[in-house]
């Protein structure tokens, strides 16, 4: 179970907003400071470990750059909940250990709501509002990738039978 506070964004949050081109040659720590700056300049500074990013349709549309998901994870975001998510972002996020819940009820969440997310059941309980958001249960094999910390540790286990050195 994941518990965190919601940061709510609108529709079509694209990869240029999540990982701006001008910062793409920089290391992740620096790139992440620019995450979502064009729509919410204070986000990267103020987001807390465990917080939840909530959005409308088309989250992560655009580029294949996985820094879009990596920047969110680096900033401490625990899960993304959106009404729909672009295919490459969806795969990248799980591969990097950032789970995603697709729920058409995501638009009922407001900024600052405290959420409890159950990925296997495909739902999020909005503790603040006392409402349930239902969505698509996350398939077991994607949950196992997240549980291992992402695709690389997951593959390491498969190839070598254990987690890699950090």
């Amino acid at each position, binding site marked *: 179970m994941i518990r965190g506070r919601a940061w709510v964004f609108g529709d*079509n949050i*694209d*990869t*240029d*907003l999540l990982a*701006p*081109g*001008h910062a*793409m*040659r*920089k290391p992740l720590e620096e790139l992440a400071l620019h995450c979502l700056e*064009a729509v919410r300049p204070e986000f990267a500074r103020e987001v807390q470990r465990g917080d939840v990013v909530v959005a409308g*349709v*088309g989250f992560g*549309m*655009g*580029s*294949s*750059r*996985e820094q879009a*998901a990596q920047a969110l994870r680096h900033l401490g975001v625990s899960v993304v909940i959106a009404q*729909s*998510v*672009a*295919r*490459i972002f969806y*795969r*990248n996020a799980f*591969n*990097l250990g950032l789970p995603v819940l697709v729920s058409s009820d995501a638009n009922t969440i407001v900024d600052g709501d405290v959420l409890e997310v159950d990925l296997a059941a495909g739902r999020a309980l909005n503790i603040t509002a006392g409402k349930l958001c239902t969505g698509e249960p996350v*398939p077991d*094999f994607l949950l196992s990738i997240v549980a291992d910390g*992402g*695709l*690389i540790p997951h*593959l*390491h286990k498969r*190839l*070598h039978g254990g987690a*890699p*050195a950090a």
Partner: protein
Amino acid sequence: MSRPLTLSEKIIARASGRSELRPGEIVTCAVDLAMMHDSGGPRRVKPYLERLAAPVWDASKVVIVTDHFVPPADVDSAEILALTRRWARDNDVQQFFDMQGICHVVVQERGLLLPGMLAVGGDSHSPSGGAVGAFMVGIGATEMAGVLVTGEIWLRVPETYLIRWSGTLGAAPSAKDIMLFLCAHVGMSNDFKVMQYAGETIRDLSMMERLVLCNMSAELGAKTGIIAADEKTLAAIRESGRVISQDLLQWQSDPDADYAKRFEFDAGGLAPQVAAPHSPANSSAVDNHGSVRIDQAYIGACTGAKLSDLHMAAAVLQGNKVAPGVRLLVAPASADTMRNAATDGTLATLTAAGAILLPSGCGACAGYGAGVLADDEVCIASTARNFKGRMGSAKAAVYLASPYTVAASAIRGLVSDPREFVH
């Protein structure tokens, strides 16, 4: 009697060793070709492969193209390119194309993709590969590391939408106008679907123009785009020097295949399209944008700077001049494009009109290279995306259009209909 299959289902069935499959099933596929560029490629996958302590599964199936940080304008970029070259050499990647153009164009110029292949690319415009009848999807760098080690990828079998175009395009509309029209009319949320393009209009398009359709399937939100191979496809591959069998024409949908949706459009009435900021879905006929003044006109990217695109721009600019106060930047999509356009006189026409030539590569399209925008500047571009801040300042405005329309707008200094210049 087994279930009839679409082209994409046939390719996925072959790559996963299945005789039957259905949309929604998750299958593991053998990868025939894995393409990377300098941004998402070696600099990102190298540390992952080191952590996995595993070699590349088959270097002969790996293609690396440097196109994002080229030529390097700062030391960070130069280091990324140096690392890319070292990694290609150390891992014995023979298919390494350094500063030869944009990956999606280069792999087709070199005949590396064949009908029926299942390919992955570390770039979201990888659906471009569908132009030759391959099934090619974009993936991120971690996933690419997984492919490089295992030679496999898991895929959810997608539903296919059949998009048929009939009739003949007018003098100025092009494949780009078709895609901008589709962004507005089919929308950008066709998540996890395959767009298969067919019909007489598509059959009449050149291979470079077909690439635009599959390329911008990414903007439709699709998993990929695909066009079944025909004689034109095989001729283009043979032009690269590759010897191939006629049997590749077997890669077609079954006649009674099951499409999740079918769309029918008529090319005859299609006007040149322009997408207003900040989304390709904000597209409509060019006359709706007539009073917009521009500072920059940009012809670049895989979508909009192939030889066919430069020919469109030259047809409009022939005997005309770029408006005072407007800059027209042209970044040909590949070194071959640059050479061919130099040989056939296209570059002379463009530069006589006042165009400024930039190096081949992804350039300003994604905000990496030369030609980015300042606050409040307005640009019309032949690229695929106009998301806020993508091409420089988040306060800049980018309009998308065909190379014809971009060139006409450069002459007038306003977003302009190219049909008065092309007959």
